[in-house]
């Protein structure tokens, strides 16, 4: 697993004359050469609009776009490509589901968890649903035994992994309980798709949402998996490419996936997801998981044994993010000083204000890992923290 750093050209960059230690992967990942080249090659030799053309380039583009859909489909274990819709990102995916299910949700309830990202909170509010959080213990572990489903509960929407704590939610257990009550489950996989092998059939969810840019692909592209039993819900958006017959009086819609892709999609973005999947599969998701787990555990342990560091959350299964604070030092100061040492972390509430309120804090410093990070990066972080503490002494 060593040596993947060199696949990512940006990582060769020096920041303030220091080696870049990029630990802001939960915000967005860097891109390997193969993905960057796929995008420019596409624009240099195949670019065209898709689906509706009679000409050669349009055929090639359509084929590459649909190929990317197939790759995503098999990457997440969907039954067929038609269950995969390309969207603009996780946030967009969740908003589309909220919009489509609005008639059911309005005035009713969506069950979430206490660690959700705003993107899995606000869309449900805009659709007129009330939100209730599944209880968690003091380590922010979900108490699935306390899931309480009422007549008003119309959906459970939970993140697979927390973008703040790195904790992995027991999604399988949640879908099992939801099935008993025939409640659909949406899984926000924004922070798991790049770290864990994922199989939607195994998870048993009805919707799965994630972003390209956090999994080594382009910005502006995301995925919404929709299980076949929701293939006939109202499309959230209207426009070209998703309709059968249009009159001013009314419109009929095509079948999925076209039904849910109004307008010209982000063709290059979809193709870049295909390239990113090729890249990850070239290494192997299991191998990525093992390597990241090693680095993640090492970093977490070193942080825990560092004086004056509080690390948040503590569940058995974790990936991606570690959140911490230094005693008597504001997270913003920590972030600014680390930055000047070439270490990129994120600070603040990480779009998870309800969790911050539960933890009784304003924000954290978050270090988040990708396949190219190493124990060396974790060491650099620990050294940096030493420096931050010294400067505040």
């Amino acid at each position: 697993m060593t040596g993947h750093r060199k696949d990512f050209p940006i990582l060769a960059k020096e920041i303030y004359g220091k080696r870049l230690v990029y630990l802001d992967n939960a915000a967005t990942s860097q891109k390997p050469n193969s993905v960057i080249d796929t995008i420019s090659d596409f624009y240099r030799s195949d670019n065209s609009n898709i689906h509706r053309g009679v000409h050669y380039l349009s055929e090639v583009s359509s084929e590459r776009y649909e190929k990317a859909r197939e790759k995503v489909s098999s990457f997440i274990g969907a039954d067929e490509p038609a269950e995969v819709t390309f969207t603009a990102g996780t946030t967009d995916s969740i908003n589309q589901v909220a919009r489509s299910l609005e008639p059911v949700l309005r005035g009713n309830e969506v069950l979430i968890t206490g660690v959700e990202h705003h993107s899995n909170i606000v869309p449900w509010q805009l659709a007129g649903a009330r939100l209730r959080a599944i209880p968690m213990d003091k380590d922010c572990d979900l108490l699935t035994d306390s899931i309480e489903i009422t007549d008003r509960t119309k959906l459970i929407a939970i993140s697979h992994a927390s973008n703040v704590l790195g904790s992995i939610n027991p999604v399988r257990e949640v879908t099992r309980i939801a099935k008993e009550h025939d409640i659909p489950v949406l899984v926000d996989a924004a922070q798991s798709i790049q770290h864990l092998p994922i199989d939607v059939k195994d998870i048993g969810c009805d919707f799965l949402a994630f972003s390209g840019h956090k999994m080594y692909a382009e910005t502006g592209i995301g995925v919404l998996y929709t299980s076949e039993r929701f293939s006939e819900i109202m499309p959230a958006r209207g426009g070209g490419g998703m309709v059968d017959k249009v009159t001013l009086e009314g419109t009929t819609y095509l079948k999925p996936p076209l039904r849910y892709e109004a307008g010209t999609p982000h063709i290059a973005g979809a193709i870049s997801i295909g390239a990113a999947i090729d890249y990850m599969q070239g290494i192997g998701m299991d191998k990525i998981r093992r390597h990241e787990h090693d680095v993640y555990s090492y970093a977490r342990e070193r942080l825990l044994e560092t004086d004056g560091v509080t690390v948040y959350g503590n569940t058995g299964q974790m990936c991606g993010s570690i959140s911490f604070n230094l005693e008597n030092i504001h997270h913003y100061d920590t972030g600014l000083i680390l930055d000047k040492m070439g270490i990129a972390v994120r600070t603040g509430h990480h779009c998870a204000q309800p969790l911050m309120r539960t933890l009784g804090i304003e924000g954290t410093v978050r270090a988040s890992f990708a396949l190219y990070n190493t124990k060396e990066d974790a060491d650099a972080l620990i050294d940096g923290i030493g420096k931050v503490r010294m400067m505040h002494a």
Partner: protein
Amino acid sequence: MRDTVQEEIIKQFEGLEWLDRYALLISFAKELEPMDAKFRTEKNSISGCQSRVWIISHKEDGRLMFHLDSEAMITRGIMSLLMKVVNNRPPREVVDLDLYFIEEIGLKSNLSPARADGLASIIRRIREVAEGEMN
């Protein structure tokens, strides 16, 4: 499995430039007996085609006979080839038929799932009809 009708078609297209292949398809289209207007209904049409395509079928002595038609000549030419290959066979044979000639005469791109006008949906319909007739 190769079959003689497809082999013959492939031979006719062999070595032709693209425009000549289209010219040949148009000549086949011209020979095709047009479908009576009364059959050109919504129900008999296949959706998702760039040019409208209609399909009807009947059974003669246990053998399936399809009549296909389209507004567009090139599509019509392909329909005529499909009829040559598919017609006059028992349903079971139609279901199992490997329509390899399409790829070999260079029309595979018209089969791509990416194209709304895919030949794929026409072939799917032919197979569905044949399956229905097997029972």
